[in-house]
């Protein structure tokens, strides 16, 4: 059964980009270009800095447990592909 990486708790993100660097290491490179995960900065309410996370589905071919584990603020969760499909039907 396939695993799907989700940024379930993205409000926890502190913008450290360790997830981006982990993904890129798994792809054999150092850098930001071509990363299946991107971290964007947004301006939230009361000028608070908030981040959003863009995830390309191609990330699920990688070691998603390792990506989930590197995040210091537990932004990510991993779900089974079948659960994702059931959620969609509901």
């Amino acid at each position: 059964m396939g695993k799907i990486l989700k940024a379930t708790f993205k409000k926890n993100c502190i913008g450290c980009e360790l997830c981006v660097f982990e993904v890129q290491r798994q792809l054999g490179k150092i850098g930001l270009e071509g990363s299946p995960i991107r971290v964007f900065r947004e301006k939230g309410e009361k000028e608070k800095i908030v981040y959003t996370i863009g995830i390309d589905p191609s990330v699920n071919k990688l070691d998603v447990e390792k990506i989930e584990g590197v995040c210091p603020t537990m932004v990510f969760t991993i779900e089974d592909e079948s659960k994702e499909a059931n959620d969609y039907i509901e």
Partner: protein
Amino acid sequence: MTTLNKKILYINLANQTYETKLHDNYGKYIGGVGLGAKILNTIEKSEEASVSSEPIIFSIGPLNGYFPYASKTSVLFRHHNELKDHYLGGNLSTRIKFSSLDAIVIYGRSKEPVTFDILDETVIFHTGGVDLGSLGLPGKRSQISKKGEKYLLGDYFATVDDSLSQLLTNKNLQGFVITGTHTYDLPKSERYLELYNMMLSRIEEISVRKSGSPSCSGCPVGCFESSKGEEGGNLLAHSLVACTFAQKIYGDTSIVFSCLDVLGSGYTHEDIENFPKLVYDLLEELKK
């Protein structure tokens, strides 16, 4: 990979021109404050140097982008003739690294308000109103812009005092954006990943508390102090350019040598051991 050659982008605000130079004799200054000091010393000794050029040198080190806690950018400049070495958090260091640059030197003064947009080694100048937020590539950009009287990186990360802001204001520079799109091959040695994971696991040795605040690129701590910037401190750590709160890790020459060695940087133990005195002497010369 060798880090002995240093690639520096020189941006002249007075005539809105730029050029990139590869210096093959700056290697022993490693990066950060060491490299910044060498650049400033060279500029001030050169025949073309004039007081009005007032260079501001943003520089990074060989470990930025490769190892955790090497997350700062050194900013070296003179303010009212006093030498200032400041360290800025946020994501600027990785954007400079992924632009394949070691330093950016901004000098001269624009006659009109100006901004610029760096994409790797290319600079585009903008005069008149331009929305800095519209420049650069999302997820790969870093932005310094004016907010009130202060210049902030990403609207959040500041330097320790207003001296840099005053200098940037005097230069008529409204702000700038840098986007880095270069990638480097992952170091082949398995030792790289071992070192990376070992250093990441030493988070408890970082002398600042987690606070859930915006963090610097490559640092998992997210401390409240990240917004304030740093000034002075350990010359080796600030040449890499690591966070001052990671001094227990980056103040250790054996760890630093291992990191540089695994990247194939070409430095010897002696280079690292002799480095602090080399840079200390250069900074003292600059302070005279």
